[in-house]
């Protein structure tokens, strides 16, 4: 009793709707020095940033495409729009946001979530952040939560001190591309000792066909501060491919704690190639919770550099690959100081010919003794056409380490389905129950609202066309 056509047709991707294009500015298609020049000019940037962009473009052009992971040869970098400005100015209230765009974010439930449980919201549409808010009491405590372009204008020194320090443009080809054409994203600064109880959320929406979205996020958590940042993303369905290539840099100062949660739900025509990295100092904690449900191809390995004693990293990765989807995800932890600890937990589900891979690295530098690391990856394969692979890399240059690695691959068993069906659940309900159970250990780590959202998205992915 293999899971029969529990197919999600394209029309069932709930966020696949699109708005008419009424943009303030749309750059010509393709990537060139002129494109970069134009973006920088539109943003009226300081000279150092313009130069950094050009330098990054050179690096991008020189670096070859990665030959591992997913196939990028079909991705035509000249067939992408690199910059679209959707609105004249950023709204401080939703009423200041253009009507179509506001409606889109309403359909995505953002204003409602903001009212209910968020401390601040950024909403990016194409290349620019069209709405931004932060609760007043946080502003008064010195918390900065801005779109990255505004941060460059308003806090130039702070910005320059950290930008590109965790992920330099030369880090990899896609990081170079982002550094050349970045636009939007979140800039967060949490002063020492400030604990932000409610999450800050950013939502990224692509609307245009062949769009490239290159947001750039920078989070600085000073000593003993705490913040939870959440990002969500969706796009309409087009025949042509879109590209999302973000860079996220995080600095977690001693004793601070940052949690970064992603619920990625791009439509199945989006290449999602993202570099995410945090540097965690003494006694600091960095947590990545990375949920990848959508996209055509995702290559994303959130990483943590443990730079001070007793720093801690936790990476939870959930991936779901359906028809024509490849989720190449995982995490990296670099132990660069003694007594640091890390946990990587990955759960992947593949279905209808979809493919998932766990790709991860644990690296321990010499001198980083007395460290502890646990890697656990579980794959669930729902049918005979689907596939899952595991690529765990370990580079250990220190003897005094405690490292555990466990991997399991399971297929949804006929017996398991039969057992649940004998209790009155339909085959589809049974499969959903097994899948939700499979990801439960990770989902329970999410705040309630996101846990509900995650379960709902998984159910949508699992639902058949028969009502």
């Amino acid at each position, binding site marked *: 009793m293999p899971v029969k056509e529990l197919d999600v047709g394209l029309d069932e991707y709930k966020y696949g709707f699109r708005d008419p294009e009424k943009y303030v500015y749309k750059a010509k298609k393709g990537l060139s020095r002129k494109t970069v020049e134009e973006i920088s000019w539109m943003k009226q940037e300081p000279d150092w940033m313009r130069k950094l962009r050009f330098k990054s473009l050179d690096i991008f052009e020189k670096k070859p495409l990665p030959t591992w992971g997913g196939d990028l040869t079909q991705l035509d970098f000249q067939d992408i729009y690199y910059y679209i400005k959707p609105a004249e100015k950023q709204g401080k209230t939703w009423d200041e946001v253009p009507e179509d765009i506001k409606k889109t974010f309403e359909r995505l439930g953002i204003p409602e979530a903001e009212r209910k449980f968020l401390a601040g919201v950024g909403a990016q549409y194409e290349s620019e952040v069209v709405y931004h808010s932060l609760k007043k009491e946080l502003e008064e405590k010195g918390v900065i939560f801005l779109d990255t372009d505004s941060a460059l204008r308003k806090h130039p020194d702070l910005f320059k001190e950290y930008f590109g320090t965790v992920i330099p443009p030369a880090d990899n080809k896609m990081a170079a591309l982002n550094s050349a054409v970045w636009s939007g994203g979140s800039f967060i600064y949490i002063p020492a000792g400030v604990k932000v109880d409610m999450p800050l959320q950013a939502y990224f929406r692509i609307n245009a066909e062949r769009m490239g979205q290159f947001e750039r996020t920078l989070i600085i958590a000073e000593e003993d501060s705490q913040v939870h940042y959440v990002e969500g993303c969706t796009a309409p369905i087009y025949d042509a491919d879109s590209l999302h290539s973000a860079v996220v840099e995080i600095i977690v100062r001693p004793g601070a704690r940052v949690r970064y949660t992603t619920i990625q739900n791009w439509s199945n025509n989006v290449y999602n190639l993202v570099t995410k990295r945090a540097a965690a100092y003494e006694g600091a904690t960095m947590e990545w919770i990375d949920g990848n449900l959508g996209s055509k191809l995702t290559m994303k390995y959130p990483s943590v550099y443990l730079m001070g004693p007793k720093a801690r990293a936790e990476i939870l990765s959930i991936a779901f690959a359906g028809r024509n989807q490849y989720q190449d995800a995982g995490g990296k932890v670099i132990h660069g100081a003694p007594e640091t600890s890390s946990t990587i937990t990955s759960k992947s589900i593949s279905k209808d010919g979809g493919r998932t891979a766990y790709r991860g690295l644990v690296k321990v530098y010499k001198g980083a003794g007395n460290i502890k690391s646990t890697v656990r990856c579980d794959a669930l394969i729902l049918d005979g056409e689907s596939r899952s692979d595991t690529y765990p890399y370990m580079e250990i240059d220190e003897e005094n380490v405690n490292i555990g690695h466990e991997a399991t691959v399971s297929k949804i068993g006929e*017996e398991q389905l*039969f*057992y649940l069906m*004998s209790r*009155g*659940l339909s085959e589809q309900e*049974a499969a959903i129950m*097994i899948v939700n159970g499979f990801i439960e250990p990770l989902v329970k780590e999410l705040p309630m609202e996101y846990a509900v959202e995650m379960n709902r998205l998984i159910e949508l992915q699992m639902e058949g066309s028969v009502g």
Partner: protein
Amino acid sequence: MNPILEIKDLYVSIDGKQILKGINVEIGPGEVHALMGRNGSGKSTLAYALMGHPKYVVDEGRIFFRGENLLELSPDQRARKGLFLAFQYPMAVPGVSVANFLRTAVNAVNGDGGEKKSIPVSRFRKELKENMNLLKIEPSFAKRYLNDGFSGGEKKRMEVLQLAMVKPALAILDEADSGLDIDALKIVSESINRVMDGEMGTLIITHYQRILNYINPNFVHVMADGRIVASGGPELARKLETQGYEWLEGEGVSADAG
């Protein structure tokens, strides 16, 4: 009274190999039938075939459940009609709590799955607590993942707990006693007896007579090589206990059940 379950001349094969070779059984409301036999005689095959496991192919014969043709229904439809199978080897479903699972199952079977008819949470909780008490299952089990890391005995209690919660029209208990010590057996039997106290028909599949000391069958059938070779009253089970299965061999006695 009309039987709940009628099995007529049933032939079943697995992977092309015929296991059941002409089974006839009728079970009426409130009746308890014991199906005994050695390992490999086809007892569990009958259980799976009744529940509709896709690997168990019905070659010939008919099964009626409350007058309806059971063979046309999927396992979940059979469950919703009121058929229940307590598994010999229940499956673990990691990440799904016992409480969540039971509620889903109870609503699927008794609430017809729809939102409207689902049983109220308060009533569900009360019943769950009562039944867990009776089965001496720790309250913490409600939060544990279904059968995940459970001992053999814990799994058996969990099957009986499901039975007690679902309250089917007909229950098949496949080796419900295997792996239970004598105290656990008493507890489990008590719960089964309590559920049976009414109109429910029961088919107890067992290798040993032991459980029948606690649950009194009205009828006993003995199976060998895919056939029922002897049928009778409770005394038949006692005879098997003292004389073993050997005396039946070669006899080919086939008596009508019920």
